[in-house]
């Protein structure tokens, strides 16, 4: 029986409220607002209160899926990455680098988002990068 509370920052908007994640035996069970943080002061919006839900959601992908015909088929990482690389290369050759756009996510860390935009600009060669919170 291991129950701990982990303070962390909410992933969504730029306010940066602190959430106190409730973790029971390694699984997220809920969220409490942090009472001592000067930004949120014990209050959260609906996104903050439900920010923990996507972690344990049953809808999350567990394996890469590739569309073969009409169906999404489970595939290995190597196969998936090869498919992405070859497809993106062929689109870049056909229509130019600017025909590719990249959308980052608030559910990823800032470091991951930075990497993604660096990759889009340096590797793919496109400036069409955006973030769901317009970061």
């Amino acid at each position, binding site marked *: *029986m*291991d*129950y*701990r*509370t982990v*303070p962390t920052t909410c992933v969504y908007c730029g306010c940066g409220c602190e959430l*106190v994640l*409730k973790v*029971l*035996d390694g699984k997220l*069970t*809920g*969220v*409490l*607002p*942090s*009472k*001592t*943080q000067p930004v949120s002061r*014990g*209050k*959260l*919006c*609906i996104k*903050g*209160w439900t920010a923990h839900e996507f972690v344990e959601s049953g809808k999350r992908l567990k394996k890469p899926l590739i569309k073969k015909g009409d169906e999404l088929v489970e595939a290995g990482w190597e196969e998936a990455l090869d498919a992405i690389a070859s497809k993106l290369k062929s689109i870049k050759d056909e229509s130019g680098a600017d025909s590719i756009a990249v959308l980052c996510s608030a559910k990823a860390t800032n470091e991951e988002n930075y990497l993604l935009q660096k990759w889009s600009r340096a590797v793919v060669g496109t400036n069409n990068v955006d973030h769901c919170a317009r970061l």
Partner: protein
Amino acid sequence: MDALRSKVEELLKSGEIAGFLGMRIVHEHPYPYLFTDKESVLLSTLTIGDVRYPLAKVILDIARKYRDAKLGIMVRGCDESALFELYKNYQLDPEKVIALGVTCPAEQVEKCRCPRPNPTNIIVGEKREVKADRSNLAMIEAMGEKEKYQYWMGQLGKCMKCYGCRNICPVCFCEVCTLEHEDLVRRGEIPPEVPNFHLVRAFHMAGRCVDCGLCEEACPASIPLRTLYQKVREIVKTHFDYLPGEDRESVPPFQLLGDGSFEISEK
């Protein structure tokens, strides 16, 4: 605090409880934490904390998974009142909970003005006395009907439907909430159906609200929720002579189906 720490250590070492729910300081901030036997070193950080977290709600999480485990919990007066209501609603087994009481510092008691600042079994702190203050209710009762309505519509119209009041309430334990039901509360509206949403919540607090004030602290729009629920407490006290959280034994009026104690007039 040392008295509490040694009592907890004793309970843990003897194996009477599987874990003790208290607070500890992490990076200079207090957070709830379950102390278990393996971490007796961390017991030295057991602290009351000058901010309140709904420990009664946290223990529900643990108790739901480990139904047979005996747990200890550090309770202020309000936490214990909430525990009483949870026992009465069969959400927690009182045989499986050992509550060690602490009283809040005097400034906190002055600020909070809760109805029951002293837990039954006080380990740390002195008995506190608090004068009841009805001024917020009296201010509203003094208004005329139209004025009252304008006041409440203005206040309830600030609501942003964050469900904070419901999520943090220690006596709100339903796993499926009617406030999220499509047929009862329309979706996609901010503010949510005024005044329906809040009156429904207020009614659900009848016979349950222990006046801990966590809802008002959690409301980002600073709606005077505590005032509304205090009025509901008064209404239940007037009609049924019942105050939630006062003691372990009295039966909530809405749990009794039919009883002769309530005067029903044939109007």
